[in-house]
């Protein structure tokens, strides 16, 4: 009897309780007896390494994995619920916003917001009402674009806001955000976090999955940590005085003394030098995405490139990598002091340049391939005779990298699509290490990767530099650049605005250089 009374008291305070959730996939237990309690009106973060089961748990909650495909109980608003699909959970006010946004690029903001919930007057869409309501919702999320604007014409940050507007339209009471800021720059992230804070004040409960621990520390009221499919602990951010190190300890199950491996650079001669590199946008004629860029990288040196999204970092790197982006307008490239002209990706690879792309799934991997085919795919010549692939050499090469990079997989015959983000990234790294690059460019090498794997990847990058290769790291995470680089260039609107050595760079002065065009470069771009 007593326990019943206790339960009733909880109902007012607790919006969601998941009890002993176990979800199995063929051959693997993704979740095992996971429990969590979310209080009404709080921001509840879920932390865990990639593959720990965070997204699976949210899919169980939102009905993507229907009732019956898992065991355990979900109590929502004091009542046990058994969602069979997303429609049912949305009806109950639970809305999930996935990492990959579910917006249709060709449709307008308003059309996207009301997709599936259109305002209809006798079978015809009422555009006046649709746009009026859309404008109202957009105001709520702090977006002042016209509702008729096509989704493809607004940035990722704004798209994220449209998703939230869409959720608000569904009378959301429990909003789940899966890695909401992964693709956003600092400004947009802050704006989004501010919005979440505002929603909290309006009484909307949020569950947020994120790898960005500083953001979690900033926004969350409590944190549930999941490790290897089990809920490890729930932390009260304010009461327990939780900081990043505390969260990391929970996630990896041990103390991480440093987020970067120990490393002493051994810097040699200049290997690559780029002078006056100018590239025109392939989409917008006349717009230069790189404006007379000059930089160099020495052997054994890790050079960081900092810039906001859209500043032209990726464009510059891809253009140097065999002119694989944009229209080359002018500039010189020197390798070991000799001028070279690399007009295609194969030429760049042969010249000893490797490029780890920013978006693994879209640009970096063929998800249908297995590990061993992927490993050798950028330099098949190396293991082929008369254009016939030596499968034994292929297996041995892949097996070698599996061991040295400690890729977690039963065999190298496994499909890369089945690996977790960190292990996929290791396969991509293996693919480029296999080409024996003298210069390796890494574009956002740790995006969407958990802390433990990040540490390992930093180690691999440092090893590479130590063996005398030149390394470029492009990243949106300033702490990563500060921890890893020997030197950091800043890019703003296609122009290189500064270069800071390890000792003198701080988040503040980098951010300043990333956001201000110097007079010289402003003149050059005019």
């Amino acid at each position, binding site marked *: 009897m007593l326990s019943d009374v206790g339960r009733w008291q909880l109902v007012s305070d607790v919006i969601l309780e998941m009890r002993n959730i176990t979800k199995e*996939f*063929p*051959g*693997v237990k*993704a*979740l095992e007896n996971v429990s969590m309690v979310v209080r009404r009106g709080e921001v509840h973060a879920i932390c865990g390494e*990639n*593959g*720990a*089961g*965070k*997204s*699976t748990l949210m899919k169980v909650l939102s009905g993507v994995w229907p009732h019956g495909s898992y065991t355990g109980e979900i109590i929502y608003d004091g009542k046990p619920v058994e969602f069979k699909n997303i429609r049912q959970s949305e009806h109950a006010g639970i809305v999930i916003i996935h990492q990959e946004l579910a917006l249709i690029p060709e449709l307008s903001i308003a059309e996207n917001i009301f997709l599936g919930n259109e305002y209809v007057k006798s079978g015809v869409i009422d555009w006046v009402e649709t746009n009026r309501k859309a404008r109202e919702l957009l105001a709520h999320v702090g977006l002042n674009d016209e509702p008729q604007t096509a989704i493809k014409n607004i940035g990722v940050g704004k798209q994220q806001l449209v998703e939230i507007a869409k959720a608000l339209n569904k009378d959301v009471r429990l909003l789940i955000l899966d890695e909401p800021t992964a693709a956003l720059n600092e400004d947009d992230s802050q704006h989004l976090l501010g919005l979440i804070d505002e929603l909290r004040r309006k009484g909307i409960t949020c569950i947020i*999955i994120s790898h960005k621990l500083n953001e979690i520390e900033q926004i969350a009221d409590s944190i549930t940590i999941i490790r290897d*499919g089990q809920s490890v602990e729930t932390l009260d951010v304010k009461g327990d005085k939780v900081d990043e190190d505390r969260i990391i300890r929970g996630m990896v199950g041990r103390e991480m003394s440093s987020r970067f491996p120990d490393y002493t650079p051994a810097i040699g001669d200049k290997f690559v030098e780029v002078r006056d590199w100018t590239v025109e946008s392939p989409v917008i004629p006349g717009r230069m995405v790189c404006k007379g860029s000059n930089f160099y990288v020495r052997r054994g040196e890790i050079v960081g490139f900092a810039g906001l999204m859209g500043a032209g970092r990726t464009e510059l790197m*891809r253009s140097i*990598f065999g002119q*694989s982006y944009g229209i080359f307008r002018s500039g010189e490239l020197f390798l070991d002091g000799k001028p070279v002209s690399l007009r*295609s*990706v*194969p030429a*760049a*690879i042969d010249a000893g340049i490797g*490029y780890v*792309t920013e978006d693994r799934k*879209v*640009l*970096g*991997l*063929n*998800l*249908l*391939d*297995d590990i061993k*085919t992927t490993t050798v*795919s*950028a*330099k*098949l*010549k190396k293991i*082929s005779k008369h*254009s*016939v*692939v030596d*499968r*034994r050499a292929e*297996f*041995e090469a892949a*097996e070698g990298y599996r061991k040295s990079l400690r890729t977690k*997989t*039963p*065999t190298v*015959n*496994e499909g890369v699509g*089945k*690996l*977790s*983000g960190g292990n996929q990234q290791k396969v991509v790294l293996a*693919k480029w290490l296999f080409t024996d690059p003298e210069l390796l460019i890494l574009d956002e090498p740790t995006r*969407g990767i958990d802390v433990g794997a990040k540490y390992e990847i930093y180690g691999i990058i440092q090893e590479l530099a130590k063996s005398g290769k030149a390394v470029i790291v492009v990243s949106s995470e300033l702490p990563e650049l500060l921890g890893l680089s020997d030197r950091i260039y800043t890019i703003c609107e296609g122009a290189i605005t500064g270069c800071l050595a390890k000792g003198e760079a701080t988040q503040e002065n980098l951010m300043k250089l990333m956001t201000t065009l110097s007079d010289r470069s402003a003149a050059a771009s005019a």
Partner: protein
Amino acid sequence: MKKLKDIFGGDTRQFGMIFALVALIVFFQIMTNGLVLKPENVINIFNGNSYILVMAIGMVLVIIAGHIDLSVGSVAAAVGIVVALLMRDTGMHWVVAVLVGLVVGAIIGAWQGFWVAYVGIPAFIVTLSGMMVFRGLNQLIGKSNTIPVGEDFQVIGAGYLPEIGPNTGYNNLTVLLGLILVASVVFGAVRTRRNQVKIGAATDSATALWIRTGLISAAILAVTLLMASGRKGTSFPVSGLILGALVLIYGFISTRTIIGRHVYAVGGNRHAAELSGVRSKRVNFLVMMNMSILAALAGMMFVARSNASGPFDGVGWELDAIAAVFIGGAAVTGGVGTVIGSIVGGLVMAVLNNGMQLLGVGADLTQIIKGLVLLIAVAFDVYNKMQGRPSIIGLLMRNSKKAAAPVSDKAA
């Protein structure tokens, strides 16, 4: 069940289409009181379908690369008429004529490949255009007449291996061919096994491998004896020989060579392939060109078999070839498919056709059943993929050594 899995390497489901083929043969064999496996009929199935299967080989590469080719029937017809006219009007030797035919095919393929690869027009449009253009060319050149071809040319479509050596009651060359094939299958198995053990990659048990090899060998021998024991003067058809050679060559190219890898890479993720140094335009060009060359060959084989080139040769062939590829486990989105799978898919259609003909089922009903088989086969595939299992034969044929257990679905 566990044993079966071992023998066939991985999921038994992957062998669905091969089982379906065997089941179909058994079914019709019983229903027709043994007509299906009569030597004459088996030879007939090979002769009557090899040109479709030749095109299926080209088509699967096109589809793996993420394209489609609707023009193959028209290309076959256009090349057929050119070759028939050359032989009739200029008295060109048939061997030279065949070579000229292949060159014409290559030129047509280069034309279509150019638009697809270098201009970037979807292959569906380019080859839809080609379908009309080359049909029209056939009728323009041939003035919509039927042009007969000489007997010597007919060998590539209707010829048989000659009778040589002592009278054994069997066709000696056919038997010899079968034995060579069995020997190479066994040799290949031994070598693969030895390599796998050496590098520690052996995933299936030795017994399973031997049973598998034994079954394949038995099947080859059975077909060989069947074909060798036919009516005097018939034996293994030359068209079957051409097909067999092409299967071996293209099977090898698609799985073992750099260009083969590149075809899969472009179809699987074009951007990733390009950023890994694959020249995707060249791959697309070559794949389209290769298709037209094979279509040209198929067209000539058909003309040889039917003794003449006509204005309506090759109508609807593209659909048969495409159906074979999809029944054989290729994915509409590209990146997945195998040469062997497509041949099996084509044979399923062929046996279905033949069996129903023997049963006296009308062409109307046959069409309906074939259409449904295509739908069910692909639906089966899609269902399997939704369950996270590999496609029926697609994956298996690419790598039969693959361990079956999925590692993790839980990636965040």
